[in-house]
């Protein structure tokens, strides 16, 4: 699975993009976020406050109960502030 990070979430994770092998049992956005938190202190810090984490699956906003699969492009980022 391709995972992208943006803004301060990218800075805390320490990378803009990575490709991961999705472990068995991770089938939802929420499951993915929980699994990512365990990948290191940068991830844990970036994802500590769920209220500040937005997720897009294949470039559409997705909720925590949305399904994810290995072929998806998933992005994690803070609330948007454009315009």
């Amino acid at each position: 699975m391709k995972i992208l990070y943006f803004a301060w979430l990218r800075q805390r994770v320490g990378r803009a993009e990575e490709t991961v092998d999705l472990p068995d049992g991770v089938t939802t956005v929420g499951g993915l976020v929980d699994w990512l938190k365990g990948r290191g202190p940068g991830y844990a810090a970036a994802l500590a406050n769920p209220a500040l984490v937005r997720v897009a699956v294949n470039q559409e906003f997705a909720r925590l109960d949305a399904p994810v699969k290995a072929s998806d492009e998933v992005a994690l980022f803070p609330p948007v502030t454009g315009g």
Partner: protein
Amino acid sequence: MIRVQREDFDVGVELDKLTRGNRTIGGLASFVGLVRDLHDPQEDGVAAMTLEHYPGMTEKMLANIEAEAHRRWQLDASLIIHRYGRMEPGERIVLVACASRHRDAAFDACRFLMDWLKTKAPFWKLEETASGERWVEARDSDDAAARRWTKDPKAAE
């Protein structure tokens, strides 16, 4: 029409292109968002701002938002141009424009586009100040503005 670009845009040229040749347009409402340096004694002055975005999703969301405006109002033409990259105070960030037979539709649709864009388009602002960089936080008032349009679409027409 939507465009996501690093370079500045010419508001007059863009608005002209949008309406030229269409004689059913009675009104053209537009909005330009600018980099602001408040010089607020409570805050640091903003020396510059960098807009990060999510290429691909940005274009997709802007196209979705524009399509939604066309579903809600009778528009002859519309335009969203949003820049990314580094900009200094006074520079243009975004241009939104809606042309319609009637001015109410043009005004409503233009405001709708800005409100939705602020909460749905994947852009993030990083400000450079004397005391360092800081990410702009999302504002509750922007969420409230976007919620204005989530009621019955007919009510906004």
